[in-house]
């Protein structure tokens, strides 16, 4: 296998986001994740400047790379044109492809995201769909959302949507021919392979953790990675 730094350089986001860092720390000052988590984008770029496989593997297995919220405030402010948010994307992709993501609590969550948002895309043609935002998994949505889900057809109809019906309009049913095109795009662009990577490495990890794993969502492994919080991620811990 190529040196990992070379693999990172094959990702255009890494090329765009990683230039010579002068350690000024503006990215950290502006970063919402750095305020909440034990996270420091300045240190991340510094570590990468070592370019060694050892330090990159340490990152790919770490909690660190999963803390960024992708707001991209860092892009606006860096005086050298670095974008730690882009660098994070390249690191996360490599972590998933090489299977290191299951080594961290936050990394294992990729499975829960794949089983929710990921599956929604190919099933409904939407990242988010009323049938996919279950009130029990989203108590923060409150009683109005539960009311919407329980009465979705009537409410959507009242508001002029074309809910789950063919044709144009809000929340229309995406036709099978369009879903087939999405699937074909996933197949030729590596989307399907990345889903398989998440599924396969997660299945192996579930075995090691003695947790049930199957095609149903949720399952025991899903519930653990979706809700597990060691509370060891914040600065004060």
């Amino acid at each position, binding site marked *: 296998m190529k040196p990992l730094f070379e693999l990172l350089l094959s*990702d255009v986001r890494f090329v765009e986001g990683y230039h010579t860092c002068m350690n000024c720390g503006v990215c950290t000052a502006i970063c*919402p*994740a750095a305020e*909440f988590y034990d996270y420091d984008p300045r240190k991340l770029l510094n570590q990468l400047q070592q370019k060694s496989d050892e330090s990159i593997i340490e990152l790919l297995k770490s909690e660190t790379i999963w803390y960024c*919220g*992708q*707001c991209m*405030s860092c892009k*606006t402010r860096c005086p050298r044109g670095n974008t730690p948010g882009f660098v994070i994307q390249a690191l*996360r992709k490599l972590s*998933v492809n090489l299977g290191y993501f299951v080594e961290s609590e936050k990394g294992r969550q*990729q499975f*829960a*995201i*794949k089983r929710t*948002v*990921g599956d929604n*895309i190919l099933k409904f043609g*939407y*990242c*988010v*769909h*009323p049938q996919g935002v279950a009130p029990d998994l989203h108590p*923060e*949505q*409150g*009683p*109005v*959302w*539960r*009311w*919407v889900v329980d*009465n979705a057809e*009537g*409410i959507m109809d009242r*508001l*002029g*949507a074309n*809910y789950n019906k*063919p*044709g*144009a*309009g*809000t*929340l229309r049913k*995406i*036709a099978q021919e*369009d*879903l087939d*095109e*999405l699937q*074909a*795009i996933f197949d030729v*662009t*590596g989307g399907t392979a*990345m889903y398989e990577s998440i599924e396969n490495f997660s299945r192996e990890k579930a075995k090691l953790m003695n947790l049930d794993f199957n095609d149903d969502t949720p399952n025991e492994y899903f519930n653990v*990675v*979706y*809700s597990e*919080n060691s509370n060891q991620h914040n600065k004060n811990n």
Partner: protein
Amino acid sequence: METKNSTRLWKSYQKEIADDHYYYARSCIRQNFFPASEKVFLKILQEELQKDIYDDPHHTTCTGIAYHSDIIPQETTATVIARHFALMTELGYENLAISCVTSFGLYTELLETWKHFPEEEAKIRELLWKATRREFSIPKNLAHSSDIIFHNREEINNKSKRRLVNAKTGQPLKVVDHIGCHYAKLFPEKGIGGAEFPYVLTGMVESWGGQVIDYPERRHCCGFGFRQYLVMANRGYSVSNSKKKFDSMAPYEPDFIVSNCPGCSMFMDKWQYTIAEMEGTTYGKGGYGIPVLTYEEMAGLVLGYDPWDLGLQMHQVSVEPLLDKMGIDYSKPNKYKTQQPNSFPKKPLKLMV
């Protein structure tokens, strides 16, 4: 000198907005949580402004939420977006009206990437052909749908039935504007006012009689954070960011919040409920929250539309305190009226509704 520099800086954050003939790129989150907003946007363009905008049943998600949660590669998202370009090319459209701020950021990022890395464009063209046998032209104009309302704000003002003014005192309503991060933080020159001087919503508010509050955390992220919200274990990040904003804006006593991002609008509405239930804190008067509007809803109220046709009943924070201030006559029984009789949301324990 200072004025000249400010003027020059401001000019660099102007953008060209196509005047007509748009292909509409819908938003997953807006359709889910604010279904009437997209309906109203089309109504305003087609019926109030007599514009041509095409709502394509073949348009799908851009996959942006999955992309920024890092479960799919960049090539997948780029090719899905390229398919949208192909659909509009086949229909003869050159101008995109994009409902979602995440999508707007991604469409923009893609075109900027292709300028610097033409080999990436060639690769995506090949992948799209392989998957769908489609080809595309580069769109001439990319606008977020809030840009288009901003562009037409004076014509909307001319047709307005209501003003963003307290009906009793005659004073302008105090408004917090919240710009979605990916609208201008990624490419400041692509957003009206850039990342530092956001004006796309302020321009609407000022034209329609309101007054925007410039509070300390005005430019702070709402805290969506993609994977930070999608996974239950991470939601502390998400709610903490919104709380930081609420705590910062509360002393200015805003009458409402308006956002151009569907996710931000939803989170700033729902997190007020969560914070109230978690710790008893509420940010409006009398135990209510601060109402949160999409810009389509704000435009709809100004144009005199019925609040329940605008979908304001889907908000967790009650909008009635705002409607009362604006002197809007609304029907209480119609709020939750659907085909299902006697179906109402439960009342929260702490937040007044």
